[in-house]
């Protein structure tokens, strides 16, 4: 099977869905780029080049560059979704959600419920997240816990190129608003990705490692670190199950509870801030539903509760590492 990057996987999913369904349109700042400029067309092909080549194939009627106007075009994508298109809107950095959050959580998230089930809003909002790029406080956050908190939104956080393609296809075919989180440090990661279209259902976790001693739950780029930690621990005779929920809304709580029922030990790894984040959410779930199975207190591995710093020295200290996960696993084994 062909190896493809996370970036190519998303591009392929978008291309195949746009070929399949003429109602799928792409919009955002510089999704093609170069509009009205004297130089090249499709100059950027989207932030990080993820949507390169789509405009030449589908034309500017379906690949719409927008002004820098997040409230405007995210709102427009939602309005278009409610009236018959299936837009994929590119929000570039999730940090910019602050500018257009109202349109997402008061409009898109609410339509179906508030209108008594008579509306669908099949919009996908793609957005980059995560630290490690030396991009500092306003271009490095995770923020998916904010969206997971809002009923009516679906929240997807792929950790591999294979998942990125299958989850993107599912997101486009889904009738609910989906916030699709792409970790900016994963774009060049390679994985085996089938050429044909395939959809990965939401709410089904992926077990990337299996073992009887400790359950490790991780999301996004943290899945890689959790796998590294699990492999290192395996060499020392400690067997971990690593669970990647893949979507935090809906979330596959059954897989987590089942695994904790077997191991009795839980480490949750999350790149989001610790307060009211996914790590705390999973810890609370297990405390409520599987307390008697626990043989040790739950451990959370997260950054400290501070903004993302710029200096490489500080950012490296900020981010969770495989070593910290190993340490946490040893802690629950002690």
């Amino acid at each position, binding site marked *: 099977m062909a190896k493809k990057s996370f970036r190519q996987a998303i591009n392929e999913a978008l291309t195949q869905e746009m070929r399949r369904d003429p109602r799928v349109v792409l919009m955002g700042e510089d999704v093609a780029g170069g509009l009205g400029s004297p130089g090249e067309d499709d100059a950027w092909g989207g932030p990080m080049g993820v949507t390169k080549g789509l405009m030449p194939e589908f034309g500017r009627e379906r690949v719409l560059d927008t002004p820098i106007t997040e409230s405007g075009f995210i709102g427009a994508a939602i*309005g278009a979704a409610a009236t018959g298109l299936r837009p994929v809107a590119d929000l570039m950095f999730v940090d910019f959600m602050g500018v257009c959050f109202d349109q997402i959580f008061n409009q898109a998230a609410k339509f179906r419920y508030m209108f008594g089930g008579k509306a669908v809003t099949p919009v996908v909002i793609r957005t980059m997240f995560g630290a490690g790029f030396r991009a500092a406080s306003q271009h490095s956050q995770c923020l998916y816990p904010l969206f997971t908190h809002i009923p009516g939104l679906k929240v997807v956080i792929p950790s591999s190129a294979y998942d990125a393609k299958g989850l993107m296809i599912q997101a486009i075919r889904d009738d609910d608003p989906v916030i699709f989180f792409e970790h900016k440090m994963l774009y060049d990661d390679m994985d085996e990705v089938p050429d044909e279209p395939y959809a990965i259902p939401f709410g089904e976790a992926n077990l990337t490692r299996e073992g009887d001693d400790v359950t490790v739950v991780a999301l996004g780029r943290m899945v890689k670190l959790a796998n590294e930690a699990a492999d290192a621990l395996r060499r020392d005779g400690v067997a971990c199950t690593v669970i990647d929920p893949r979507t935090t809304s809906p979330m596959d709580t059954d897989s987590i509870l089942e695994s904790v029922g077997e191991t009795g030990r839980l480490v949750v790894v999350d790149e989001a801030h610790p307060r009211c984040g996914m790590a705390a959410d999973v810890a609370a779930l297990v405390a409520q539903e599987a307390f008697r199975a626990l043989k040790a207190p739950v451990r959370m591995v997260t950054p400290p509760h501070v903004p993302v710093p710029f200096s490489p020295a500080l950012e490296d200290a900020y981010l969770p590492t495989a070593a910290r996960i190993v340490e946490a696993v040893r802690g629950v084994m002690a």
Partner: protein
Amino acid sequence: MQLNREQLLAAWRMMGTIRAFEDRVHAEFAAGGIPGFVHLYAGEEASAVGVCMNLDHRDKIASTHRGHGHCIAKGCDVPGMMAEIFGRASGLCGGKGGSMHIADLEKGMMGANGIVGGGPPLICGAALTAKTLKTGGVAVAFIGDGASNQGTTMESYNLAKAWMLPAIFVIEDNGYAESTASNWSVSGSQIKRAEGFGIPAVQVDGIDFFAIHDAAAEAVERARGGGGPSLIHVKLNRYHGHFEGDAQTYRAPGEIERLRRERDPLAHFRRRVTEAGLLEASQLDAIEAEVATAIETAVAAAKSAPMPPPPNLLTDVYVSY
């Protein structure tokens, strides 16, 4: 534009329905039967009806928190609206939306909206749908003078023009954003703001159904013909408070009584059509009586309708799972 007798009767029926609906909701709210927040449209009827009479099934509107008039003018089911406001299972949204969120997508009504400035970006999307799928439809945002100061509104002007969308922005300027006067809160002029974005704009008198109708006809024609967005600034008046229960101490003594006496859009319409010999007063009276009966029936039905059953709490969210 010359309207025929049937159209004039339809306009009268619709404006009368809005007035009767709102006056009745006012009374029912005061009596304690209606929960939550209610914002009434009485006094502004000519705007919703004058605009929406130019629209058809292809067209979409987005409304405001003061949305009952737009719903009625776009053809939403009136008993269903009343039941919704009373929070009943038979309401247009099954009782989940209430006054501020009445919607009927099948009628092209994209929802009243609890967020000031929520609608303009949405209709850019609806207009994009119409343009992309070549439906020939247009999309209209009703915007209060308060919402005209929101960034979303001005972003939408810019986006609608950049994308040359079949979008129409109707600013319903009733003089007050909540309790704050628009002659203080709106810097510059609505018309010049639109013109600054290259959007043709016109101001009309909100008691004049005919002026609004003609302005909207021109905007709709421009939009359908690929000429891009337009703006209509309607100067009108609201008879009730920002919300029901608002004591309106910010208004001048006697202001509302004077407006009702001198600036009433229904009285203006009646005078115009009877003086011109287009309709008989008796025809108008007969419709008024029919409307009163219809509203009475809608209220009785709403009050006797069952509340939504508790299991409905968990439906209509993630229904695909």
